[in-house]
């Protein structure tokens, strides 16, 4: 078994997989990778199981020391990557030797980088998932000196053939596809129109639970009886703030739910930076 030592944890790095399903009725959030498109691509390139656990890094990557050979892939945001000082690229298999030091610096564009490892990380499984979540797993993010385990894997091929054509999701336009939310029809017409005609700006108030938008929307809706919410639910608060719930969101909420992002839109949004503009694109029906 291989061992990674966390030299620098980066801004916010956590173990994530496809999420924790089947416990929402007890109030347990789904969690899982914010950008499932990059997460899936990273595992796919390594021919891993689809739910193999990856590291999710946010804005500023980690520095990691490996003590056994393995294969890794990095996908997602554009970031300077190096191994023992030698530059590396995203979206291709990188062989790792015992004693290698991987460094991922501040991202140039996009918000999240996924590090997949051959056969997945081996952190604790709680309620059928390895996804970190405070109160469920023993930690919410990695700290300096933490140790992560992985199956050691010797590599014989060459990395050159493994490069795959891929879609550059992080540069995808400003449009986010949405379904109408349960309370949208109670919006006054001019407010409804604004919701789809206006652009909105991603604010700095964001984490794995939700992302707030800078512009407010005049609001005529009252709070609702506490009802289910989901990753991708857009809530409108009494003061007119728009909050888009993300993977670590609570399972219930009391604000009107005016939109529901598609799963793909949640992934795209999780790569947007504060200051970037988005616009909602309404899909027919649900």
């Amino acid at each position, binding site marked *: 078994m291989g061992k990674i030592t966390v030299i620098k944890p980066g801004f916010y790095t956590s173990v994530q997989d496809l999420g924790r*399903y*089947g*416990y*929402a*009725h*007890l*109030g*347990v*959030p*789904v969690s899982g990778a914010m950008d499932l498109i990059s997460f899936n691509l990273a595992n796919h390139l390594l021919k891993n199981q689809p739910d193999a656990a990856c590291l999710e890094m946010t804005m500023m990557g980690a520095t990691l020391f490996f003590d056994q050979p393995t294969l890794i892939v990095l996908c997602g945001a554009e970031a300077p990557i190096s191994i023992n000082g030698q530059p590396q690229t995203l979206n291709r298999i990188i062989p790792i030797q015992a004693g290698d030091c991987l460094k991922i610096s501040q991202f140039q564009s996009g918000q999240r980088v996924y590090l997949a490892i051959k056969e997945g990380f081996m952190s604790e499984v*709680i*309620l059928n998932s390895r996804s970190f979540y405070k*109160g*469920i797993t023993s930690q919410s993010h990695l700290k300096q000196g933490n140790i992560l385990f992985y199956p050691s894997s010797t590599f014989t091929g060459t990395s050159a053939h493994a490069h795959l054509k891929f879609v550059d999701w992080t540069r995808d336009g400003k449009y986010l596809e949405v*379904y109408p*939310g*349960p309370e949208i029809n109670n919006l006054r017409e001019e407010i409804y129109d604004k919701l789809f005609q206006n652009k909105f700006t991603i604010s700095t108030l964001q984490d794995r639970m939700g992302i707030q938008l800078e512009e407010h929307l005049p609001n005529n809706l009252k709070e*609702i*009886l*506490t*009802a*289910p919410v*989901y990753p*991708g639910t857009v809530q409108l608060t009494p003061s007119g703030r728009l909050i888009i719930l993300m993977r670590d969101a*609570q*399972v*219930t909420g009391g604000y009107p739910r005016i939109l*529901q992002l*598609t*799963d793909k839109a949640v992934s795209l949004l999780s790569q947007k930076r504060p200051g970037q503009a988005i616009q909602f694109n309404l899909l027919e*029906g*649900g």
Partner: protein
Amino acid sequence: MMDYPIKYRYISPFILEVCWPADICEGILLDIIRLKKGLQTIWGPDLRDMTMGYHCLSLHFNSAINFPLVLSEIEEVRTSTGFSILPARKRWHIPICYDLEFGKDLSIMAKTTKLNIEEIIDLHSSTIYLLYFYGFMPGFMYLGGLAEELYTPRKNMPDRKVKKGSLAIGGRQTGIYPMDSPGGWSIIGKTPVNIFNLHSKDLVLAQPGDEIQFEKIDKDLFYFIQDQDAASRYVLKNETIHGQNYGH
């Protein structure tokens, strides 16, 4: 059996909500529980998650929903007498120490409610609450039945850290924080029992539709039960309720 008018809300190709009239009442809760149980029986593994609100049942499927088929099966379950039986109701007694050391907002509440602290505690611990659903955070119970005299607005400035086990009142609701969390409710006591237990086969004991009563304990008993609970030697007191109208 199930004669409330219901509506369907399409959330996404994978998620469907069944909605009852927007009200907090036991009749709707029991109707939701019946339907939930029935759908679990017929769909089982097709369902990824089933969550509840006061008047909604959310069905989250593993694959894209065939809406006409799903709606007709829901109607079938709602009209079939075979799915009208409710699970047995239990009443759970959760020990609470209302000592001022734990109930740090009791003094302020005494001013705002114009009751004295003893009256607040007596009123709170003599009420039998109904568990509607879990939400907000893992193991957090949404309880109905708080006495009107105890309604307390949420704090303007939420506390940065409310301790795990804290019993609190926020607006018209009362509940226990199952883990450390920021929170804006007024803290009136604390339970020594782990109400959301990751190390137990049953993460929680009380089910939606069950009753909750808080039992006043002193500090000595608090620490005794805390030790017992930590050693998995404490069993939450409970009994099965045979209410004459329950289940009909």
